[in-house]
């Protein structure tokens, strides 16, 4: 087992909407990310995946909780945080919006170096930029062009080169492929895997495409309404999902065989995702859960390690002692 590079403990990010309403985008998330691994985070749109990534990166101020990077507490002062940006980088969702339309590719890749004062020597800088651009599969002829002259996939490659320019160890990829064509998605995912192998990068891979996440990740966490409901290795998650929400999500993946597809029964969730401003009491998933019980509306299930490396937050799988406690409450 490698060392943990990132430890997130009970992280919360609330947005104050107005005097009486708070949007709980991320509501008590804990996980550990080990060096060199890829942790996938999946969930419906609006479940707080992106907020989670941005809060870890420091783009949003966290409301509560603890983030430890390489065993150290997350720096609070501006200067320390500035240093941390060198370690942690982000790949953005929309390659059409995440590149300044008025900058050339050269300027875009030089920007992180400029900010951090790396490679002040012009020749060295050009050399490094050419190195980066070829690493992501573009050529130096592209350097003098503007973003709008590129396709979505190429733009995402530029975004990746920008993220790599500071040689970070952790990359938060916020739905890096969801805005791309399917054929391009595979290329970009392959590129990310390749880079991970070469540089030993750690990825927090946020997405909603389950099959891509499975291919990409070592472990996968499932998010629902600002909380992690299940977290385990990707094989286990896809073979033996425990949480009813994970089961429903997985059954939504179409199987490319019409015979099986016709016969199998899909779990179709009823209703909409409840508003994160006013989440349900107890278990947040209970309003749509096909297996909801009386206890679910009363007590919030703990995020327990049911078996080694398999965390679930569901009353169907609680420990014995907790069951006892529940009896005492009178459910």
């Amino acid at each position: 087992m490698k060392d943990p590079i990132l430890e997130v403990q009970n992280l919360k990010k609330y947005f104050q909407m107005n005097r009486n309403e708070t949007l709980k985008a991320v509501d008590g998330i804990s996980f550990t990310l080990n060096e060199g691994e890829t942790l996938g985070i999946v969930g419906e749109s609006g479940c707080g995946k992106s907020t989670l990534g941005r809060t870890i990166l420091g783009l949003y101020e966290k409301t509560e909780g603890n983030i430890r990077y390489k065993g150290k507490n997350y720096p609070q002062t501006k200067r320390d945080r500035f240093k941390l940006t060198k370690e942690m980088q982000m790949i953005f969702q929309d390659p059409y919006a995440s590149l300044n339309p008025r900058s050339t590719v050269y300027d875009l890749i030089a920007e992180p170096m400029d900010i951090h004062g790396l490679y002040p020597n012009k020749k060295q800088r050009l050399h490094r930029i050419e190195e980066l651009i070829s690493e992501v599969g573009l050529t130096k002829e592209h350097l003098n062009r503007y973003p709008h002259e590129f396709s979505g996939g190429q733009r995402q490659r530029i975004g990746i080169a920008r993220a790599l320019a500071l040689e970070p160890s952790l990359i938060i990829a916020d739905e890096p492929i969801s805005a791309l064509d399917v054929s391009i998605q595979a290329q970009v995912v392959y590129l990310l895997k390749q880079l991970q192998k070469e540089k030993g990068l750690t990825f927090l891979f946020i997405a909603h495409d389950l099959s891509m996440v499975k291919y990409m990740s070592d472990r996968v966490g499932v998010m629902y309404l600002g909380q992690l409901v299940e977290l385990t290795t990707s094989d286990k998650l896809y073979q033996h999902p425990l949480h009813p929400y994970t089961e429903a999500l997985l059954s939504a993946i179409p199987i490319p065989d019409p015979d099986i597809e016709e016969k199998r029964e899909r779990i179709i969730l009823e209703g909409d995702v409840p508003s994160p401003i006013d989440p349900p009491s107890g278990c947040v998933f209970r309003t749509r859960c096909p297996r909801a019980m009386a206890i679910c509306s009363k007590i919030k299930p703990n995020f327990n390690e049911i078996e080694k490396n398999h965390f679930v937050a569901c009353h169907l799988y609680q420990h014995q002692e907790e069951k006892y406690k529940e009896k005492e409450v009178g459910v």
Partner: protein
Amino acid sequence: MSSMLQNFSKNKTALICMIILLFIIVVVIFSEFLPLHSPNKMNKEYRLQGPSSEFFLGTDQFGRDLFSRIISGAKISLLVGISSVIISVGIGIILGLIAGYFGKWYDSLIMRTMDILFAFPEILLALAIVAALGPGTFNTILAIGIVNIPVFTRLVRGSVLGVKNLEYIESAKSLGAKDTRILFLEILPNITAPLLVQSTLAISGAILTESALSFLGLGVQPPNPSWGGMIAESRRYMELAPGMIIWPCLAMLITIFAINLFGDALNDIFNPLRGKN
């Protein structure tokens, strides 16, 4: 950029206006080397004359050459127009960026101040400032510059609000960029199009305001010529020498028309809905 130049050369209005404006600017710059009468030299025996071979557009009530006075007036009008807009654009950009980007009480403070400035009629405010500072070319520039600040502050603030939540701003933040870098290198380059267009319109507005101030005797002081001042002087001699009022008006008309159309054309060129940019 190259596609923008292409759009530009295709737009005939923009091209014609630019040629007219360039012509005016070149004439103004090289007016001292042209074989013209001195704009302030009086010739008693040639008062209120019509066009002749000696005086191209005729003379005014003191026998001064109208043509050289109009060119000399163009120098002042353009100087006032351009420098006052530089003042208001400069201050407007800074205030607008701060208000739009930092929000909160910065925004409230700046925008409420701008609202107060906006509440005054333009010419009245300019009059008040010139009256307080005293008449003169420099003070006229300053007054018109101050009057136009709210327009640019609002414009910049609005554009910043449109841009500041885009992903590339977040991307810069995630790289550790400081606020000043984000403001001037990320946001500003992306809001230049509406600024450029508004600036051309403001230049013509400034020339008009300067004329109005000079007409009221508070702008450029005699004997130096300015278009507004020339028009004001000519009122009494309209029947005797109609050229005295016609030529400065025509010069102003052509210049402002050219600048306005140029601004409109720039708007078309930069408008993202027209091109693929």
